[in-house]
């Protein structure tokens, strides 16, 4: 009886697991020029930054390897072509980062306080909360899940394909603000 209850509750936490196998797109697309150019540009920037050498020989090597890599794997970086507002989205994401860093700093102080508190076991109250998110795209849901894990006292347990989230919180205070403000900010960044 007890074992059956446990099984049910775990299925409840991960409701849509194994239902969507949408990973297996095997359709062959032909070579797309714009993703190739954008990937090449990003790779070249990283090459210049990481090598730190600006003479002709090293730049030649870099251009050659960037051509090969972006020829092979530009479809990994942009599976559905380059979105038209890519740069604008990145700039808005950069605007989201200071708020996130502030939250991460508060999270660290909070967990540090809990760790060194002598009566820690009375302060914490771990529990799992579930909610539905209205974020649609993969990137925004990934950003949301990672932001939840980085901010005060919460870890994402399950980020479902259909927008269901399960979050483990360490005490009562941390769970109250979810989804709330963070979801609004992320939906503003990704225009949803």
């Amino acid at each position, binding site marked *: 009886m007890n074992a059956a209850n446990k099984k049910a509750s*775990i299925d409840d936490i991960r409701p849509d697991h194994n239902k969507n196998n949408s990973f297996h797109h095997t359709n062959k697309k032909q070579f797309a020029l714009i993703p190739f150019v954008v990937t090449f540009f990003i790779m070249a920037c990283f090459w210049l930054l990481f090598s730190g050498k600006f003479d002709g020989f090293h730049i030649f090597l870099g251009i050659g390897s960037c051509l090969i890599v972006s020829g092979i794997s530009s479809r990994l970086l942009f599976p559905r072509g380059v979105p038209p507002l890519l740069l604008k989205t990145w700039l808005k994401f950069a605007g989201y980062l200071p708020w996130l860093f502030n939250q991460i700093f508060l999270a660290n102080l909070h967990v540090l306080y809990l760790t060194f508190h002598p009566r820690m076991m009375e302060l914490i*109250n771990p529990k799992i909360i579930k909610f539905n998110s209205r974020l649609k795209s993969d990137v925004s849901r990934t950003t949301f899940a990672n932001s939840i*894990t980085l901010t005060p006292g919460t*870890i994402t347990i399950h980020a479902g394909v259909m927008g269901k989230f399960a979050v483990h919180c360490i005490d009562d205070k941390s769970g109250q603000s979810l989804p709330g403000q963070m979801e609004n900010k992320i939906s503003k960044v990704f225009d949803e």
Partner: protein
Amino acid sequence: MMVTIMILLIFGLIFFAGGAIGIIRFPDFYSRLHPAGKLDTGGLVITMSAFALYTIQPFDLEAIITSIKIILIVVFVFITSPTAIHSIVDAGIRAGLEPWEKQEDK
């Protein structure tokens, strides 16, 4: 400048130590991941910013490139660390480990 760097390093080490102690003190698997994940990223940010400040001391192109690389370490850890924590928690849930909860009636 050196004083700032030293203060940052000491704070970062406090964060790392807090992470290690938290892993021992918290009651169960899931709540132990809170200090393991968060205090490590926090300590990493603080110590790495101290290293970046220390590297940029003679202010030229080489130093700037090195400190940008140090900052990129932080960026990549910020992407991978939550993902790793999430997959550890997900493995725990898949294996059927129940989260520890406080006993109300005591």
